């Protein structure tokens, strides 16, 4: 470096001298960045205040307590009428979003795992068939899938009078699917209590069995005992309480069905489309995850004398899950965010209620959109928090191993691995 030769006092001005000092430079850059950002925010805030004043709007959230005056046709959890408040409409929207996201996540996971495993099948035909389906579905916008399925239900399915009838209890019509609804009678509490107690028991039993296995190597048939306990306890309580359950069957009265559980076409379309669209991405993740477990692991397990199903359960799946969980979490987030497309087919989720009709009726763009953004950020935080927790649980074994190794290398004074 030729610069070293110049050792005289730096005669450049202060700014230039500060600029050539790395620490000073980073401080300057940060101060400038912060100033720019604050100035931009200040500018936006000022514009917002002036603009709101110009159109004569106030910034407050009191409109949430006024009657909403619009109908929501799908509100399975809480009572809602057009006389309810905007706040209640928002809650209905949030619950609807949560419902379709939760159902979608469950179905997408099941379908994704099945398709991911089928993609690994040595059966050429099945492999290719699943591949074609995956590639086609993945490369077409999810909004198109949603509109297509919705159109299929609304246009192709018959009117209630000529509903597709399955065993006189399941009806598919263009106004929705009608299925028998369970009606709980007095005494159902006992059954529910038995179910909860057996689940709690199973949780403790699984932990205990794992501890025993870790310490002594004895393996209990955990799955059989758990299933037996839950099903058995619930069944016994059900019989003991005198079978407190009856079914309400849908019946055709006039032009539509009454009784039973009505599932709206909007919900079904959104649910199915989101599920199979997301499941295609999950299938690729599952496939990559299973392929990431090297074949040597399986061979080592066989060499130790483990049977194939134990190998899968104890060796392959735990390691594959470690690769699968992080991208799976982001797919769950995507599904939840994509559920906002509900507005295209009129399913009343949180964007359609708060960000749609409430916004239109009250003209409070700022407030409603802020609420919508906050709600989605909360969803994202909760889902990624849960998946991080699950991920940590999966990682636990490796972490301990690492810690031990680090401890060992510290003691011997060698080892400086990455």
């Amino acid at each position, binding site marked *: 470096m030729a610069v070293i030769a110049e050792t005289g006092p730096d005669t450049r001005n202060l700014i230039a001298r500060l600029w050539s000092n790395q620490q000073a430079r980073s401080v300057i850059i940060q101060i400038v960045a912060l100033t720019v950002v604050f100035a931009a925010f200040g500018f936006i805030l000022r514009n917002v205040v002036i603009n709101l004043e110009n159109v004569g709007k106030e910034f407050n959230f009191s409109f949430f307590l006024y009657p909403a005056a619009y109908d929501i046709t799908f509100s399975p959890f809480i009572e809602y009428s057009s006389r309810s408040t905007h706040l209640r409409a928002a809650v209905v929207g949030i619950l609807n979003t949560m419902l379709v996201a939760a159902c979608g996540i469950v179905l997408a996971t099941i379908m994704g795992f099945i398709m991911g495993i089928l993609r690994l099948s040595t059966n050429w035909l099945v492999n290719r068939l699943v591949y074609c389906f995956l590639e086609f579905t993945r490369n077409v916008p999810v909004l198109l899938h949603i509109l297509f399925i919705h159109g299929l239900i609304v246009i192709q399915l018959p009117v209630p009078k000529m509903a597709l009838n399955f065993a006189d209890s399941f009806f598919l019509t263009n106004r929705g699917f009608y299925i028998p609804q369970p009606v709980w009678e007095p005494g159902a509490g006992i059954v529910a209590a038995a179910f909860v107690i057996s689940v709690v028991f199973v949780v403790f039993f699984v932990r205990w069995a794992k501890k025993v296995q870790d310490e002594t190597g004895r393996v209990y048939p955990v799955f059989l005992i758990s299933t037996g306990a839950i099903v058995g306890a619930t069944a016994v309580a059900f019989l003991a309480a005198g079978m407190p359950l009856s079914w309400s069957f849908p019946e055709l009265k006039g032009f539509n069905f009454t009784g039973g559980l009505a599932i709206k076409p909007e919900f079904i379309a959104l649910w199915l489309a989101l599920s199979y669209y997301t499941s295609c991405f999950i299938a690729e993740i599952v496939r990559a995850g299973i392929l990431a477990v090297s074949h040597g692991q399986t061979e080592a397990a066989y060499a130790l004398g483990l049977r194939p199903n134990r190998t899968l359960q104890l060796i392959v799946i735990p390691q594959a899950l470690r690769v699968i969980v992080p991208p799976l979490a982001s797919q769950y987030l995507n599904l939840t*965010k994509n559920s906002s497309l509900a507005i295209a087919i009129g399913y009343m989720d949180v964007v359609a209620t708060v960000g749609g009709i409430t916004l239109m009726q009250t003209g409070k763009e700022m407030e409603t959109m802020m609420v919508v953004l906050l709600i989605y950020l909360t969803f994202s935080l909760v889902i990624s928090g849960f998946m991080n927790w699950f991920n940590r649980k999966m990682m636990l074994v490796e972490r301990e191993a690492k810690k031990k190794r680090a401890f060992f290398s510290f003691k011997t004074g060698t080892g400086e691995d990455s």
Partner: protein
Amino acid sequence: MSEGNTAAQSYAPGTHPDLPAPIRTTGPVAWVRMNLFSSPLNVALTLVAIGLLWWVMPPLFEWIVLDSVWTAESRKECWDKMEVPEGGACWAFIKDRLRLFVYGFYPQASRWRVNLSFVLLAMAVVPVLYDKMPGRKFGLWYAVAFPFIAGWLLVGGLGLTPVDTDQFGGILLTLIIGVTGISFSLPIGILLALGRRSKMPVMRILCVMFIEFIRGVPLIALLFIASSMLNFFLPPGTVFDLLIRVLIMVTLFAAAYIAEVVRGGLQGIPIGQFEAADSLGLTYVKAQMLIILPQALKISIPGIVNTFIGLYKDTTLVLIIGMLDPLGIGRASLADAVWAGLSREVYLFVALFFFVCCFSMSRYSLYLERKLHTGH
């Protein structure tokens, strides 16, 4: 081993000619046995798959090709021409609306400008995709300039008749949003990723906040903000074109995802590379441009292309705020009483358009990955 074995010959070690493989391990029959009927489960799966194909494919083929009608003036005429009403696809509808699907409501007289920008786009894409093209350096500069040239051609002004952006639609609109989003989100995303890994806490926090905020909310909410709220953020009296607002939102949205992908790539670079760049006395910018980013971007290609594909598919969401992309044009056409009821044709057509675009993008990314793979 000597008597009665007249055909036996003795060979020196290693000189015996290769025998044909056992008959049961080669040929189509063996292939079928190994790949389709190797176990009871596989037999069942194969039968189910064949059954599924048998059930779906012939009717689908009949509907799309054999029983379809290509020339008609209305849905009624279409269905009259078929042996079974609704038994085939009515492609006449798509043919009738094809111009709408491509140009939207772009003025008839100025459509040569759209065609010209399609040609220019193709010319800009080639040097970006193929590095063996002669004169690629010039081509790349042209590709950088292309969005601005196309913007001038399409919007008009400076000698051309101005065209309102709300007349843009169809494939033209998809390409505008897609190309703008792709070309601007990559540099912004890279800057965000570098900011997120910066040693300066303020930069890091700002970038993290931006990225996590964008990734935490659905695009549709951002588009609503663009359409209803953004005007409040600007000085009173500013009129800001809706298309530009949408472009900004889509670009920022994609940039946040690109940033995460690139960050993954940056994390994959061993620390020795950073130290080597430092010890050579490279400045931060030079070290990033010459050492770090080329390697990091190479690792992140699959993720980047996936983000681009996602962005391209997400352009359909603009129909919810009232812009007419191909899907929106299709929905609007379905409202026409002459053609109403042909939704399957419309959705299949639009799906095919997106499939062709996105599938070729993903194939190209695979090719690029193989080409850039310098490992062992």
